């Protein structure tokens, strides 16, 4: 899992996923629809959820679906539907944080390395090599072992682990962009380097970099859910899909699989949806810039 990205210049992609052709447009639309649905559910969770996600009712533990609890309850008698809805918030917010952090920092590093070149570039490239040696999840575990559980430490660690993918791409794009006439034109007109970078180079390379970030979202979701599964991610009481899979493992062993299968299914469907949408976007961007 961690970062399933191959090392090659240009967009680092899930190998081969790029070949989903236009004939499969309905698949893409279904995925887009599902992704929107999950995001909406996460945004509206507090109003949609029928019960308190943390209300424990041990007498009613592992009960099946009923009018009170549409999707049943878990080993502690907590309402599964409410936990799924509120869990969508943490499960999406974490990866969003990773993607935003790694994109902003990656662009900054890539711009600096590509534009300035020279010693700064080689220092940054060496550090990139070093970060590549750590699988994202391992780096996150290392940081969590120092800072303790919580959402922030894993998000920052994963953002650092994903940063090189963005910065390397940005750097190569900036190198190509620098040689283009419009850059020299602005330089001749006396525009400052930061101004040219931010106002002219950045908008030109943004679609490709953002497509890369979209591709990273699915990976980050899987990594963070895995950390929660290990009990190293979100705090214990916060509803989270990865944590729900962990709790559901006991339910499965008692022969009541529903409270585990539902979060499992949601994780898989969400990752698949975001992957397909992200890859398609990356495809379109690649075709346009090719």
């Amino acid at each position, binding site marked *: 899992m*961690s970062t399933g990205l191959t090392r090659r210049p240009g967009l680092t992609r899930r190998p081969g*996923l790029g070949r989903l052709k236009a004939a499969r447009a309905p698949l893409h639309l279904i995925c887009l629809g599902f992704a929107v649905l999950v995001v909406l559910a996460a945004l509206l969770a507090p109003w949609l959820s029928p019960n308190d996600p943390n209300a424990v009712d041990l007498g009613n533990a592992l009960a099946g679906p009923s009018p009170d609890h549409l999707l049943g309850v878990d080993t502690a008698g907590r309402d599964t539907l409410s936990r799924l809805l509120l869990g969508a918030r943490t499960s999406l917010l974490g990866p969003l944080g990773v993607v935003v952090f790694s994109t902003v920092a990656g662009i900054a590093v890539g711009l600096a390395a590509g534009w300035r070149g020279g010693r700064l570039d080689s220092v940054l490239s060496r550090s990139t090599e070093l970060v590549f040696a750590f699988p994202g999840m391992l780096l996150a575990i*290392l940081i969590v*072992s120092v800072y303790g559980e919580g959402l922030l430490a894993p998000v920052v660690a994963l953002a650092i682990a994903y940063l090189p993918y963005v910065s390397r791409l940005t750097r190569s794009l900036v190198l190509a962009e620098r040689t283009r006439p419009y850059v020299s034109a602005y330089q001749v007109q006396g525009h400052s380097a930061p101004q040219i970078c931010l106002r002219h180079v950045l908008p030109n390379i943004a679609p490709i970099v953002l497509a890369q970030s979209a591709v990273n979202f699915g990976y980050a979701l899987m990594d963070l859910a895995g950390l929660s599964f*290990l009990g190293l991610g979100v705090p214990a009481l916060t509803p989270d899909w990865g944590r729900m899979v962990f709790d559901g493992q006991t339910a499965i062993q008692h022969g009541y699989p529903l409270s585990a299968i539902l979060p499992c299914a949601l*994780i898989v469907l969400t990752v698949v949806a975001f992957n397909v949408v992200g890859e398609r976007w990356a495809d379109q961007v690649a075709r346009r810039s090719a």
Partner: protein
Amino acid sequence: MSFLRFAARRLVEMAVTLFGASFVVFGAMYLAPGSPASFLLSGRSASPAALQAINEQYHLDDPFLVRYFRWLGQVLQGDFGRSITYRTDVSELLADRLPATLLLVGMALVIVVVIGLALGRLGAVRGGATDSTILVTTTIALGTPSFVAAVLLQGLFAVELGWFPVGGVGDGFGDMLRHLALPALALALYLIGMLARVTRSAMLEALEGEHVTVARSRGVPEREVIRRHVFRNSLGTVLTTGGLIVSTLLVCTILVESAFSIGGIGQLLELSTTTKDFPTVQAISLIIVALFMTVNLIVDLLHPLVDPRVALGPRRSDA
């Protein structure tokens, strides 16, 4: 560049990166809020004498770099210090637990290579409905984290059907294989999807080559064309994913071992992270990084042998 010079160069590069990685692994402890001694005691209150002992055992009064190089020297001799939780040498803990993990990862690797290559090849050669089925299946596999696969497989095949044990490692080789079958499958699922995709697209690319048209027009049987001119040509590309596959296996084994309660280094890493047993976390992190880089090195060295068309040179430069 001759092969030996290429190998030497890559070896040096790896040593440098590994050195940097060891620095990160060691330095991480000093990111913690508070003094290292209180971190090593992880909040437990200690008498001044015990604090003194900790300070001496970890040489906390020395400058940072002195401590780092002393630690590095010990690590190079296979001494990772003492576990805080288990109160034994970390190297002993690892020696106990490494075999289970290596067997699990090895089994998963075999499953990935056999099924992944077969599926990718099938999809590229057959096309049509077979290809679409494989595409959809691998898309789902690529969205399934290993712990989800572990929990679902465990629920279906161990709890519901009772075909396999629910967890543990078992005794004796045959029993171990039976215990590790489901975990290995859970570990392999995501990577089967990835390898099948890589193989498929590499073969499709090779299929478009002119040499394939030539071979076909000369009447070479289709099976031979696929085997010798398409599959063989795609192996170089497939090989480059080797490092990624092994690193993914090593990281995901943490999740799978904890789902199936297998006493390997993955579970040990999880336990020592929750108990803040830092020497153990350091050792396992370093081992995973080192294994990953070794595999990458082997892949880089094998690549020109598998695919003679690649030029020996500096690492596929990160343009």
